[in-house]
């Protein structure tokens, strides 16, 4: 099928995208008593457990930072990044496989599948953002005006993860091993990125190496803006923006070139 311009489709199908996203939430919470509230309660519980474990049970402290909850706040900011990043990638792995019937039997612009998925994930992420704010507030954290910048790098993270997700999701249709391999690689990246440990905990010899991990530059923005409350420099955005552009470029090429093979293989 000749794919029309991406943004044209987005516009023509705007109502449908909205319907599809809201249907997803509706059906997920349709038979539960508190319904949509789960979208916040669930991440709230998760973050609260981290807060409890690391502040009281483990009594973890950050070097050079006083305050009983400093480590917890640091950890939550990093997890906000990691949850968005890893959830999108893990779920995209089966994105095309789970829509096999639709792809094989309905006539519609294929790009709707990632667009709807992306919108759903971002909406769901709002729940975690709200939960994070609630816990921060309860821990006595004061937000600075820099927090207003947060939506930019949250969105950037989502686009970055989605681009990787689309590539892996397509490859996984042909080589199913990815479904097993990717979670392991994600685990590894999690520990290679300063999320549960501060940058200062890395041995000095390795500190320069960590700069080669693009994820570090993303999570660093989260730490600086959400946790420390500083305003980032433009240069801090440099690596995240470049990696996102590169990966989304590749994902668009793979997505368009694989379209015919994908329908045949599903």
């Amino acid at each position: 099928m000749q794919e029309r311009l991406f943004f044209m489709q987005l516009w023509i199908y705007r109502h449908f995208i909205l319907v599809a996203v809201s249907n997803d939430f509706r059906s997920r919470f349709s038979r539960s008593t508190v319904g949509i509230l789960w979208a916040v309660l669930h991440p709230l519980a998760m973050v609260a457990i981290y807060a409890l474990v690391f502040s009281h049970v483990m009594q973890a402290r950050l070097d050079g930072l006083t305050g009983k909850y400093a480590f917890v706040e640091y950890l939550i900011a990093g997890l906000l990044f990691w949850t968005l990043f890893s959830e999108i990638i893990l779920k995209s792995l089966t994105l095309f496989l789970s829509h096999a019937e639709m792809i094989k039997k309905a006539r519609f612009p294929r790009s709707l599948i990632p667009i709807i998925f992306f919108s759903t994930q971002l909406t769901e992420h709002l729940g975690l953002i709200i939960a994070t704010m609630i816990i921060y507030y309860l821990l006595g954290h004061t937000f600075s005006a820099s927090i207003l910048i947060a939506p930019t790098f949250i969105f950037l993270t989502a686009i970055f993860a989605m681009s990787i997700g689309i590539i892996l999701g397509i490859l996984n249709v042909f080589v199913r091993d990815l479904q097993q391999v990717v979670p392991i690689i994600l685990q590894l990246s999690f520990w290679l990125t300063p999320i549960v440990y501060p940058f200062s905990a890395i041995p000095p010899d390795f500190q320069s190496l960590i700069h080669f991990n693009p994820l570090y530059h993303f999570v660093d923005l989260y730490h600086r803006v959400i946790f420390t409350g500083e305003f980032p420099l433009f240069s801090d955005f440099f690596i995240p923006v470049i990696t996102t552009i590169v990966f989304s470029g590749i994902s668009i090429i793979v997505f368009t070139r694989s379209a015919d093979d994908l329908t045949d293989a599903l």
Partner: protein
Amino acid sequence: MSVLEISCVTKSFREYRSEWHRFLSWLGFSTKPVKQFEVLRDISFSAEHGEIIGIVGKNGAGKSTLLKVISGVMAPTSGRVTSTGRITAILELGMGFNPELTGRQNAVYTAGLMGFSNEDINEALMFIQEFSELGVLFDDPIRHYSSGMWARLAFSVATARIPEILIVDEALSVGDVAFQQKSFSRIKHFAEKGCTILFVSHDRNAVLSLCDRVILLDQGKIAQSGPPEATMDYYNALLAGNVDGIVQTGSSFDEVGTRSGTGEAKITGIRLLSALGEEVETIATGSKVTLEVVATTFTAIETLVFGMSIRDRLGQVIYGTNTALTAQKLQNVSAGSSVCFRTHFAANLGVGAYTIQTALVSSETHLENNFEWIDHALSFHVMNPTDMHFVGLVSLPSSFEISYQ
């Protein structure tokens, strides 16, 4: 000018030495696929404004693939599909329905997926609620629906808007009889409005009553195309000649049939003979025929029983018997004997395709000493050349006695 033009469409599925070669081919590297399976070969035809074209063929003939290519779900490997006008394709009814959502929500979703604008959807919802006959249940989660209601909703959504070209893959026989008739007239209404319709069906009556033209596909190629009756007769001949593509009829007894058994005795010849003793593939309903089977033994067999049964196209046994039931067991058959079993029967069967299953065993059941069992030993077709038409699988000659009381 034709509304739809299909020219030299070929579809093949590619296999690469490794999937990595496939990935490289996307990135512009030239990698040659190792294998290509041709599913459609050089298909060309065009459809005019308001024409209804039926597409028939055996399973695996490429019907569904052709519809997918025409509707744009799949890209052809070579060739072109050009259409003027909006295409609606019903390749599967109720696809993407979510059981947790109401009929209305599902209708909105599906219509949106079909590219309806918001205004179109609002207009369509009125029609859908009315046509599906769901009433207040329209606002209930569809997990409460019966399968018939589900199908009615799906059909109503799919046909809510009259497109220029409608493509239907075996979706016409949904719901109860009353709804089937309603959906039939809906399709006819579409054609009257000038919509071009392409549909796949296995239902001979549906094809004959709806179509202006029929295209018969066989092994990915157009085997025949023309007026419905003539093409359907050709198709029947093709079917009778090779039901399910397993065994050839008549004397060309095929070794690759679905056989099982220990092989002490084997069937080496099978023929269906008319009353005149001629070998036939198509017989008239009610005519007297003889099934002639030659069995050869390879070891000495203490007890040999021959059994046969007639099955319809769905595989249901219509009738079966064996020589144990008729007390004609053969005792102490020496190795290397050739035995001919002739079964005489009247083919009191309805119009359709049938297959014959044979068994060589040592008792009534084939569980004990199953020498040989063939599922599709032979196939034949029953026609009704008389004026007395009837429906069903079995001919039970009947008469009416009518009186006023």
